């Protein structure tokens, strides 16, 4: 059999590992248009801050790839000819497939303002974007950041760490309003201010001005002019659907797949940020932009491509990230509504985080250690852990394992309950029994 994978991200690599775990004979071809191949996309944040050099972001050696025995084609697929089972490439010979995986990821939604084409207006999708940002980042110069979610803060923190003066523009009155609650947003904003970031609320760019083709200022809708040497944006991402559209595959917000990661063409699969995956437990099809689900989806797709029918069962999504230097775990369902700073989903985000559950909120904590739980009828539906991460692992297991929390539900919902202690005691008692 001839398996072809489009996309050199984690979903594609996981698919190759899955195929090879069952089948050492079939031919596998990986086609990728990222000039840097497979690297840790989330790790770019630490490259921007200077905690890592770029070479450290590559998890695989050439030897690792040789052991997986696949052919790597650096190139861009322009067309899927489904009837012929052939891919057309830009400036390269066509490639035939028996089974195809589309794992092309998502890309930043472009900034739609006058002047967005100017040099120095930058996004953070790929390694090449991170390198361009660092090329433009100059100590003592000024940057403007617009957008929301994790990527906007990665940009803010990265540029600040490089010694730039940073203005962070928020369209509404707080940061990441559809995942964090008001108090959590305030914690993050306070920490950003402490590090010298200037926050602007209800601030929207009207146009960008430039000199000699390079951005030099952002004019806000209220008339304020912010001089800047660089403007970085993260207003959301969108699955790269050009190929699926051209091929006539079923699409919605992403490339629609069933629980076997199969599209409406039985020989074509999709996984990772491009895929809108059917979840048999909730009956919904959702987008995730998270490393671990992408890896799991890629692996499951690979097993199915190799002939072992395997369903992908979506676990409650979680992400551990650092927001303004504060380690934060986001688990299950925690927020609601829309965020004015984001057009679609953000990187490191899951649509599931915003599916409003029938639940009550229990919260505790002070400025740098905060715990919020979404308590359902019998289980915990979601949690945010900021700062001290001791409860992060127990909560991950309780939420992903759908553990019955009836014995402590009332305690959790009592006014001023020490919910951290209640969870810790429940967890240790449960563990000592098992």
């Amino acid at each position, binding site marked *: 059999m001839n398996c072809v994978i489009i996309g050199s991200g984690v979903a594609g690599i996981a698919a190759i590992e899955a195929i090879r775990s069952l089948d050492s004979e079939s031919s596998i071809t990986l086609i990728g248009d990222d000039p840097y191949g497979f690297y840790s996309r989330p790790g770019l944040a630490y490259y921007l801050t200077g905690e890592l050099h770029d070479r450290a972001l590559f*998890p695989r050696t050439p030897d690792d790839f040789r052991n997986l025995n696949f052919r790597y084609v650096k190139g861009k697929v322009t067309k899927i000819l489904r009837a012929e089972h052939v891919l057309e490439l830009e400036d390269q010979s066509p490639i035939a497939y028996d089974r195809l995986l589309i794992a092309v990821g998502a890309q930043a939604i472009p900034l739609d303002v006058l002047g967005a084409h100017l040099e120095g207006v930058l996004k953070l999708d790929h390694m090449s974007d991170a390198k361009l940002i660092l090329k433009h980042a100059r100590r003592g110069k000024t940057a403007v950041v617009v957008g929301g979610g994790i990527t906007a803060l990665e940009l803010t923190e990265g540029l600040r760490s490089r010694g730039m003066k940073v203005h962070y523009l928020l369209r509404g009155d707080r940061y990441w309003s559809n995942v964090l609650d008001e108090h959590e947003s305030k914690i993050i904003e306070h*920490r950003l201010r402490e*590090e010298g970031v200037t926050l602007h609320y209800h601030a929207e760019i009207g146009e960008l001005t430039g000199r000699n083709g390079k951005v030099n200022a952002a004019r806000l809708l209220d008339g304020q002019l912010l001089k800047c040497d660089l403007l970085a944006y993260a207003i959301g991402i969108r699955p790269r659907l050009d190929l699926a559209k051209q091929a006539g595959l079923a699409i919605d917000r992403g490339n629609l797949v069933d629980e076997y990661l199969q599209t409406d063409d039985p020989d074509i699969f999709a996984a990772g940020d491009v895929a809108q995956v059917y979840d048999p437990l909730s009956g919904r099809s959702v987008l995730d932009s998270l490393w671990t689900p992408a890896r799991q989806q890629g692996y499951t797709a690979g097993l199915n491509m190799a002939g072992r029918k395997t369903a992908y069962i979506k676990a409650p999504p979680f992400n551990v990230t650092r927001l303004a*230097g504060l380690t934060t*775990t986001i688990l299950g369902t925690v927020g609601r509504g829309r965020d004015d700073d984001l057009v679609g989903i953000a990187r490191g985000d899951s649509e599931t985080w915003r599916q409003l559950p029938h639940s009550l909120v229990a919260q505790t904590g002070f400025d740098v250690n905060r715990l919020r739980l979404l308590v359902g009828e019998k289980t915990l539906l979601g949690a945010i852990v900021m700062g001290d991460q001791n409860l992060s*692992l127990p909560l991950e297991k309780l939420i992903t394992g759908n553990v019955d929390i009836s014995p402590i539900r009332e305690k959790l919902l009592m006014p001023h309950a020490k919910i951290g202690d209640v969870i810790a005691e429940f967890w240790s008692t449960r563990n000592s029994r098992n």
Partner: protein
Amino acid sequence: MTFLGIFKRDAKKHTVLASGQVVPDPARCVQCGICTYNCPIGIDVRVHAWRGEPVQHSQCLTCGECVARCPRGVLRFEQTDLFAKGTS
């Protein structure tokens, strides 16, 4: 600690746990490589995190640098038999 503090901090001394090993939670790992980058003796901790295997490496000092540096809480210490032998 504020975020600029995190980026600037120097390696700290950590308690040596002679009877411990570093155990990853692969579901949290994004393969950024900070663990490997900061390992003083060059163990590729990240590979262990990808495979979900404890860092059973005869040269691991259990210095805790990888545990402390990981920004996502992937790594933790787990006590082992004091006399268990590590693999190379």
